[in-house]
């Protein structure tokens, strides 16, 4: 197993940041290589971490699907495309204190694609923000677990989202606040790719670049599918990375289901001083269950009893 060290050339030794990476990590990241030195080291500790994250993500998917089945409503396809990103963030990247959710110096995370609340809640429970049994109340009358997250009700939730295109402006403001307060915390925001059709994202994209918010990280869950159909058939968003690059962001592309890559890049983010970071995470909608994968139907399809059983069995038996 290897550890890769991402280091900016101008950084000194004390600025080295260490991040675990899968041993089959071989693809050069889409960061400009001239700015980076990448070295790798043997370790055994990372294997445990990757295994832990893999198991956690499996539980998150199983619970999210059970929650949607219980509520008879939800968005399992997007829950599954985002699950690995959420788990990597909450269990491997974000500086948080689950026992003290409002710790002032915590990193901020905004789930802009708020309809994927089941995956978020399951991840928050996994990270220890609340007890797992609360997940069983998903969308029940008077539950704290609304269909879309409410920061006033759910420990660990930073923003009330649901209508698309709110998260990036919010995160931009959070990053501005950190700068004004001279605080070290970072702000991460996860959007869908179809969601980026909302113009408010691009208003914020311009603003974050103008203000050089190098404490802001946008992650695009690029699963290629929106409610009605494949994104490219509705309103094409490609070339996604080029769009952000042209807006003045530092862009990296990763496999959004590879914990090695996610930890390397998210852990090294923000990637460059003076620029906001956009990580295009290439994902598969419904990832983890064969009959859910890459099928627009599963955007908000509620599994039947049989589908649930099949999906859970498949997740349970998954080797990866």
């Amino acid at each position: 197993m290897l550890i890769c060290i991402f280091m900016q050339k101008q950084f000194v030794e004390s600025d080295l940041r260490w991040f675990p990476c899968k041993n089959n990590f071989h693809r050069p990241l889409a960061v400009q290589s001239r700015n980076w030195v990448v070295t790798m080291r043997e370790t055994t500790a990372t294997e445990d971490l990757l295994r832990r994250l893999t198991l956690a993500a499996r539980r998150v998917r199983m619970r999210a699907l059970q929650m949607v089945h219980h509520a008879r409503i939800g968005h399992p396809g997007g829950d599954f495309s985002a699950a690995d990103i959420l788990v990597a963030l909450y269990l491997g990247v974000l500086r948080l204190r689950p026992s003290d959710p409002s710790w002032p110096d915590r990193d901020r995370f905004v789930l802009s694609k708020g309809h994927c609340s089941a995956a978020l809640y399951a991840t928050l429970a996994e990270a220890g923000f609340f007890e797992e049994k609360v997940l069983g109340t998903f969308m029940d009358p008077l539950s704290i677990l609304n269909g879309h997250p409410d920061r006033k009700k759910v420990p660990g939730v930073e923003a009330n989202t649901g209508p698309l295109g709110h998260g990036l402006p919010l995160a931009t403001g959070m990053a501005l606040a950190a700068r004004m307060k001279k605080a070290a915390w970072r702000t991460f925001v996860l959007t869908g790719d179809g969601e980026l059709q909302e113009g408010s994202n691009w208003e914020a994209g311009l603003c974050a670049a103008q203000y050089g918010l190098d404490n802001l990280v946008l992650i695009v869950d690029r699963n290629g599918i929106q409610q009605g159909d494949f994104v490219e058939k509705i309103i094409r968003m490609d070339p996604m990375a080029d769009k952000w690059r042209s807006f003045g962001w530092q862009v990296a592309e990763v496999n959004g289901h590879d914990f090695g890559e996610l930890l390397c890049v998210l852990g090294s983010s923000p990637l460059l001083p003076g620029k906001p970071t956009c990580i295009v995470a290439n994902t598969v909608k419904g990832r983890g269950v064969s009959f859910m994968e890459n099928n627009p139907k599963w955007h908000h399809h509620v599994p039947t009893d049989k589908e649930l059983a099949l999906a859970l069995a498949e997740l349970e038996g998954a080797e990866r």
Partner: protein
Amino acid sequence: MSESMSSATETFDCRDIFAATLEEMAAEDQRICAVVNDSVGSTKLGGFRRRFPERFVNVGIAEQNMVGASAGLASGGMIPFCCGASCFLTARAMEQVKVDLGYAQNNVKLCGMSSGLAYGELGPTHHSIEDLAWTRVIPNLSVVVPADPVETRSALQWARDNDGPVFLRLSRMPVPRLFPDDHRFIPGQAPVLRDGGDLTIFANGVLVFRALEAAVRLGRRGILARVINMSSITPLDREAVLRAARETGAILTVEEASIYGGLGGAVCEIVAEEHPVRVRRMGVPGVFAPTGSEAFLLEHFGLTAEGIESAAADLVRQRRAP
């Protein structure tokens, strides 16, 4: 136009006291910041930008991001005053106002500048007469329409101290000073500016002094009008409305806004449910206003001392008729 008070009295553009107060508060409190949509001149925040450049954010012509980013700033512990022309600040970013401010309870102070008919000649695109109806229905959002410089200053200070989202609806139309220095804006408390038993006039913003003038003129005709400054739209002083209904039996509402959904709508809801009496609403009566200066348009819609006097006299006559 009303002549007696406005010609005899010094008038003030409340944006001046707004900008001065905001700078003063920012000097005292590091959490205060300003967010604008390329509206530095019209918000008169040039001085703020010079003194506190690191706490001044210009998002450009982008109101959704302006309100969303303000919510993020608030969530990060700042107290943002989010300032732009009221017509764009509200309409263009309404969902952000609802979700990021009202629902998420982020501590943002929306400052809607040049509200009402202030941009008269520019036409209905720039008139902001719907903003009170839109903001009034959003839970957790306080809605305040100050009447003069003293109240503008006090409302700003209150907004700073009140942990929650506020919509301050400000105007550029010069108004005389109505309140003594020690007047304090108190949410949900509508001060009686002049007492009377024949009818009650509820007014706010730039029309309060005109309502007072109308009351003076009514007095000369033997009609005693109670005039109440309803600067606090949310929360609304229900007791003041019910006392007016019980004690004066007729209510006239006067606002530089659509008669639908704003102050007039709010008063009617309470009166109709709790103590029905005759109400007449003055404002813009459900039309897009024609072109003309703010003064012209106010006159066009009868929002002058004479117009208010005449409507009030009619109302009292109708009430007294069998």
